[in-house]
């Protein structure tokens, strides 16, 4: 299609959208038609020998992402490639890219350091396994390689850790050869706390000092002034106090402060016992849990194996979508002694301990067995649970939506908090959070800032800045289902044309870990494959790769597809 025809097509699309928006009913039709037109257009243009179509990209509208694309657009222009970026808010991005799998050639995203992403299974299977190349799955780039799937599936059920590590390395090697995505870097978490008022801060990999993902990081906090309540900022608020309702990471992590999980992560991010004293894998699908004795719920009643069995039965009975991982992996729970419960699993699952036992929690039987009762609710997930009773280190005091969540120390917890309470403050603007830190209105910065903000805040003599590496990552995904992205040489050339170090320096002042050609950060040494370095950043190399694959350039320096 000539550039003139493209113009006409674009005008037609805009007209369509305009007409659509005039009549409300046809609006969504117009949107989808618009997007479909883009995709169809892109396909039609990828004919052999023709000038390379303008690469369409989609990205969330965050400043770091905007800058990434400004850099990439300039770099790829040197290859004779034009990039046009479409940006949207996160919800639009999720709805289109994940929900509908409607995406242009390139899609960028950054993944935070949620606790379950510590285990390689998340990145290996959720993002690249072909079974997730369906609407709603995260393999929206449609990477389909049976050899990869086989290895990725095998590591998931391999309970022998050494053997599993081999498979994890192998999976990374396969995907690095195929280049289904560009992993840019793993941005450090930069947080701050008021050292004049609080001590005993425990940084944890992937969690830093302020995120609620690892409960341990709040437990060591000590007050240096008479006020023994710490105020922690966050950009989010929780949506519900019901632990069965939402799978959203922030919400469930905060509720795990109240509802203790079975295991948790220590300061080196290793698994450590929490509500459990120990666990043993009897065979690949049988696990014995030994409950830590002497625990109590916040209402004073003891925590028993009855409660443990009840919680699993309850989850299996109601099949809460929020706890899908438990539903998918656990077959049954039986009491085998005063302090022991035997779990039967549906299939062997290597990440069972971190991802299921680190996520499931103990709910008090005496509270939940009456829910939903005759309240008329369809599911206990809809129960407001206004006075949550758990067995975690913090107990519920008060929640004012959009203002604060106030928790008090549960002194009977086996590792009692040194403070009397903690308050989580949802403050949507990061700049306001920093201001509150400076003015002493908040004590612990619970989100992440960048180096410049940290340096400025750190000039305050009361404030200490803490930088922690994370396993989260910034990536650009290729849409392999759309020509010409299915051309491996083009993907390799783009890898060569992407100078990750420059991006990290400009965008985050170098605060982060440069990625290998795998999603698993080099910081997680036991899982990351060190032998898959990124293609060397060099425009010349990129051009050579393209030339070798039969690409040519026209008189204006525009890239042409191989004929």
């Amino acid at each position, binding site marked *: 299609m000539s550039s003139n025809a493209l113009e006409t097509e674009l005008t037609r699309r*805009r007209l369509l*959208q305009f007409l659509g928006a005039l009549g409300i009913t046809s609006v969504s039709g117009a949107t989808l038609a618009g997007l479909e037109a883009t995709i169809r257009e892109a396909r039609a243009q990828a004919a052999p020998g023709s000038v390379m179509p303008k690469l369409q990209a989609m990205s969330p509208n965050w*400043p770091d992402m905007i800058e990434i694309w400004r850099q990439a657009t300039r770099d790829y222009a040197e290859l004779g490639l034009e990039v046009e970026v*479409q940006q949207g808010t996160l919800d639009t991005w999720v709805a289109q890219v994940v929900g509908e799998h409607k995406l242009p050639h390139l899609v960028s995203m950054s993944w935070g350091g949620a606790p379950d992403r510590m285990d390689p299974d998340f990145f290996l299977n959720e993002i690249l396994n072909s079974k997730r190349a369906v609407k709603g799955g995260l393999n929206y780039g449609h990477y389909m390689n049976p050899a990869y799937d086989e290895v990725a599936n095998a590591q998931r059920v391999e309970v022998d850790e050494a053997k599993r590590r081999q498979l994890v390395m192998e999976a990374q090697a396969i995907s690095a050869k195929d280049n289904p995505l560009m992993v840019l870097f793993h941005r450090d978490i930069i947080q701050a706390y008021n050292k004049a008022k609080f001590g005993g801060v425990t940084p944890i990999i992937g969690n830093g000092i302020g995120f609620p993902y690892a409960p341990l990081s709040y437990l060591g906090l000590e007050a240096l002034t008479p006020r023994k309540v710490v105020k922690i900022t966050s950009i989010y608020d929780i949506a519900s106090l019901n632990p069965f309702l939402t799978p959203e990471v922030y919400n469930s992590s905060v509720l795990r402060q109240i509802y203790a999980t079975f295991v948790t992560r220590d300061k080196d991010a290793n698994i450590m016992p929490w509500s459990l004293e120990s666990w043993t894998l009897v065979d690949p699908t049988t696990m014995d849990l030994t409950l830590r004795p002497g625990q109590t719920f916040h209402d004073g009643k003891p925590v028993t194996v009855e409660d443990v069995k009840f919680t699993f039965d309850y989850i299996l009975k109601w099949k809460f979508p929020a706890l899908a991982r438990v539903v998918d992996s656990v077959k049954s729970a039986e009491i085998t002694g005063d302090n022991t419960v035997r779990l039967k699993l549906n299939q062997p699952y290597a990440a069972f301990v971190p991802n299921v036992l680190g996520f499931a929690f103990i709910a008090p039987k005496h509270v939940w067995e009456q829910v939903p009762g005759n309240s008329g609710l369809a599911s206990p997930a809809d129960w407001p649970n206004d006075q949550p009773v758990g067995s975690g280190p913090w107990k519920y005091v008060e929640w004012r939506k959009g203002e604060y969540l106030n928790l008090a120390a549960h002194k009977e917890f086996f590792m009692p908090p040194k403070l009397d309470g903690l308050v989580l403050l949802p403050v949507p603007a990061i700049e306001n959070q920093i201001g509150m830190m400076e003015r002493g209105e908040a004590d612990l910065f619970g989100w992440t800032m960048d180096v410049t903000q940290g340096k400025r805040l750190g000039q305050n003599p009361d404030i200490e800045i803490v930088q922690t590496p994370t396993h989260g990552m910034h990536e650009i995904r290729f849409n392999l289902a759309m020509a010409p992205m299915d051309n491996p040489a083009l993907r390799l050339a783009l890898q060569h044309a992407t100078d990750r170090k420059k991006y990290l320096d400009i965008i985050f002042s170098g605060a982060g870990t440069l990625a290998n050609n795998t999603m698993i950060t080099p910081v997680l040494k036991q899982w990351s494959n060190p032998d898959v370095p990124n293609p060397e950043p060099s425009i010349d190399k990129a051009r050579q790769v393209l030339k070798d694959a039969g690409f040519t350039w026209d008189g204006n320096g525009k890239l042409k597809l191989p004929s």
Partner: protein
Amino acid sequence: MTDLAIAQTPSRRASVLGTIGSLIALPFRTWTGAIASVIFLTFCVIAVIGPWIAPYSPNANHFNAQGELLRLAAPSAAHWLGTTYYGSDVLSQLIVGTRIVVIVGLTCALFITLIGTNVGLISGYYGGRVDAVLMRITDLAFGIPFIPFAVVLVALLAPSTWNIILTISLLMWRTAARVIRSQVLSLKQRAFVKASQIAGASDLRIIYLHLFPNVLPMTMLYVAFDIAWAVIAEASVSFLGFGDPNQMSWGQMLYLAYLSGAIRHAWWWTIPPGVCLTLFVGSVFLIGREFEKLTNPKLA
């Protein structure tokens, strides 16, 4: 959003072209109007030639002699308005951003006026059921809060300058429609309209040849107001992060400045876009004020 009552001498001979000609010269009659017009025209000129007069490419990253990124550098000889968080030149962004502001302002004003004037004319002239329906639609438009609605439309359609223009136009015609309707209501009682009706002139002829020239000064007043509202609306939507990512605009600059935490420290990044917005919008208002005097001689 001023609902002005109208008093002016309607004339049957008012011609569209003649009225426009005298309207253009109008703002220069007073010194405030003249200054405002000069500011407005300056921005329009910058909008056209911006990319050529900007000292740097707006998104280029600048480094110092040691090769360090000039992150949030204070104003200097090389960068008169300092640099942004990613080391881009603020002045260049400001200059290049003018274009989108002017385009949005003028295009929206055109659409809003087109919709508003026609709804007002038709509603006022026909009265009765047509009027009732059109005015209830206007009520609906008044009831919808602009920014949340913009968020909905941006979620429906992608964020682009075109869609922002569309959103603004879809809502903002409401005031013009109401005011012009009330003016038409009084105009149509006048002798010259009755005379045309008796002479057998078609409704369209009466509306566009007799009524329209008489509401034109009022329309021009709303063109001025609409430019101002549209520019502020675009800036607000961009500030919340729903702007067009491919187009530098003053609102977009403020969005990035705010998110990057420049509001505490880097005044050179936060203040200039706001000042430009204020100057541009203010000049348009002052020009509008001159039209206001024309539509309502009691104000002069």
